[in-house]
């Protein structure tokens, strides 16, 4: 149960990164800050302005989407059109991430904050759970299904897949790459913001919230195959599960459970050694 909910959260956090990476061909290190941003926005609306919880989450997600879209429009799109190299794109995404993080630190302070929501426990049969975990599950499930439908059935979804596959060909067949990218970036940031809210509700709210899962999101992106939607789905659950198993092994070995994120690093390096294209490439060859 624990691994499944972690898997769900990782999935929400990573989907946007993987899709925008596949489409724009560079890793957006600022993606982690969208996660933090979403969480802080929800915190602001909920505890500072005293809004309804659903409304706050909704507003936070919309603002995250706006941030993602704006960072593409104002920073990465002009940089790309100036012919910036891959390394320049990466360094400016790191710059953006520091900018967002320290802006949040400035506004909300660097300390630990909490949503102060006490979740009642519900037991369904033998499983004891909380409404939060159920909400995470439901959100992930709805996101996965609706994204699946969007990517396979709608015109927009097909355009996204085509553009990620071969941008030149997609542009030649009349797909507006900028519009598609803008949409993907906003959607990805919205999902990241969502996952940030859940992450913060589950533990606590710190300015390093997103940075702490950066390693995991990149491990999932590479393991799943860059830009692959189904790859992310599978890889998030693999990581969620292996982290849980890993923690058991770690305590058995007498090591600190803090090494949890080192598991993601091991998976990342193993992927690079064995199959840099990720799960998606393996699946494609079989098909």
């Amino acid at each position, binding site marked *: 149960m624990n691994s499944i909910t972690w898997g769900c959260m990782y999935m929400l956090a990573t989907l946007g990164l993987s899709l925008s990476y596949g489409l724009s061909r560079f890793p957006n290190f600022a993606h982690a800050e969208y996660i933090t941003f979403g969480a802080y926005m929800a915190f602001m609306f909920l505890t500072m302005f005293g809004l309804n919880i659903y409304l706050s989450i909704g507003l936070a997600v919309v603002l995250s989407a706006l941030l993602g879209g704006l960072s593409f429009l104002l920073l990465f799109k002009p940089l790309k059109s100036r012919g910036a*190299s891959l390394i320049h794109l*990466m*360094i*400016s995404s790191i*710059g953006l991430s*520091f900018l967002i993080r320290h802006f949040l630190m*400035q506004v909300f302070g660097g300390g630990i904050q909490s949503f102060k929501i006490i979740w009642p426990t519900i037991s369904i049969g033998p499983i004891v759970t909380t409404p939060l975990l159920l909400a995470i599950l439901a959100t992930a499930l709805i996101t996965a299904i609706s994204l699946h439908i969007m990517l396979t059935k709608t015109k927009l979804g097909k355009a996204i897949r085509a553009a990620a596959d071969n941008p030149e060909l997609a542009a030649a067949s009349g797909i507006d790459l900028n519009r598609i990218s803008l949409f993907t970036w906003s959607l990805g940031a919205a999902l990241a913001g969502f996952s940030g809210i859940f992450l913060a509700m589950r533990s606590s709210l710190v300015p390093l919230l997103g940075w702490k899962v950066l*390693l995991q999101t990149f491990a999932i992106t590479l393991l799943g195959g860059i830009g692959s939607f189904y790859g992310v789905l599978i890889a998030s659950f693999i990581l969620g599960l292996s982290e849980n198993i890993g923690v058991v092994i770690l305590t058995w070995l007498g090591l600190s459970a803090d090494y949890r*994120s080192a598991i993601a690093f091991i998976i990342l*390096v193993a992927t690079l050694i064995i199959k840099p294209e990720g799960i998606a490439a393996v699946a494609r060859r079989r098909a």
Partner: protein
Amino acid sequence: MADPLMYLLDAIAYAGIFGILSISLNLEYGYTNLANFGKVAFFMIGAYVTAIMSSLKYPFIASSLLAILIASVIGILTSLPTLRLKEDFLAITMISLGEVMKLIIKNETWLAGGVWGISGIPPAIVIPGLTFRDRLIVQIALIYSVLIACFLLCELIVKSPYGRVLKTIREDELLASTYGKNVFKYKVQVFALGSAMSGLAGSLFAQYIGTVSPYMFEPTVTFTIWMMVILGGPANNLGAILGAFMVEGFQRSSRLIKDYFNLPLDPVNLQVMLTAILVIIVVFYRPQGLLKEKIKPYEGKIHKIITSKLMEVKSWIHRS
């Protein structure tokens, strides 16, 4: 630091240490196009190896040599899986390496003092009976002799045939391999050398400030070093040093502002935000940095001809 002279000397020493880091990144990024986003990991390894060795009463020379060795070995091991792939894979792996290294140091209290770090590292050169200021000057002399040595080494490398191969790899890997150069081998060598220099810088850092803790090695350090190279001018060693001085000066002065003015902003946040904005502006408007790379006229011409020929060949391969 009430005495402005001490503050200045301290800043000069810091700029020297960061100058070494900046030169090493310049060798990796400026000349060979390797995106090492984990500079802080190697810096940290160097500092911690020195700290641990000196707590075991080994002399500085031995501990710095070991620091260089360990940093370069870790550099080789972690870069091996990624150097055959595109730059972004190296970047992701290195940024993760920095986090994992910090994790190990925070948790292994028996080895590295955990979150408290290690203190009481003796300086490399101990001359009895010196004032605080004179000791600072001795430190600066030590740091700058290492900096000059690193600078000369890198200049020698990039001006040699070896350096021309590196620049060819940067421009076009395929071109380098058509000349029969083992691109992978060159990249690993450059990475090992860059890591070794970062390790040495870490070693100097540890003996200079006398104490190390995990909180000194945040990812912002990596970003600062990148800032120095990008601002100063990639593929120009003097530019890298100039960048180190400018960024250090900028950060120091923003810290000074905090002492004299009452700002509504937290100075650390302000400093990082300004640095980030500056990086983005430089990447936008002057990606070649303040000091441009010096290209000999014939090198440029030959390169242009070869590249155009290669493009023809490539398009032929593509068509067939």
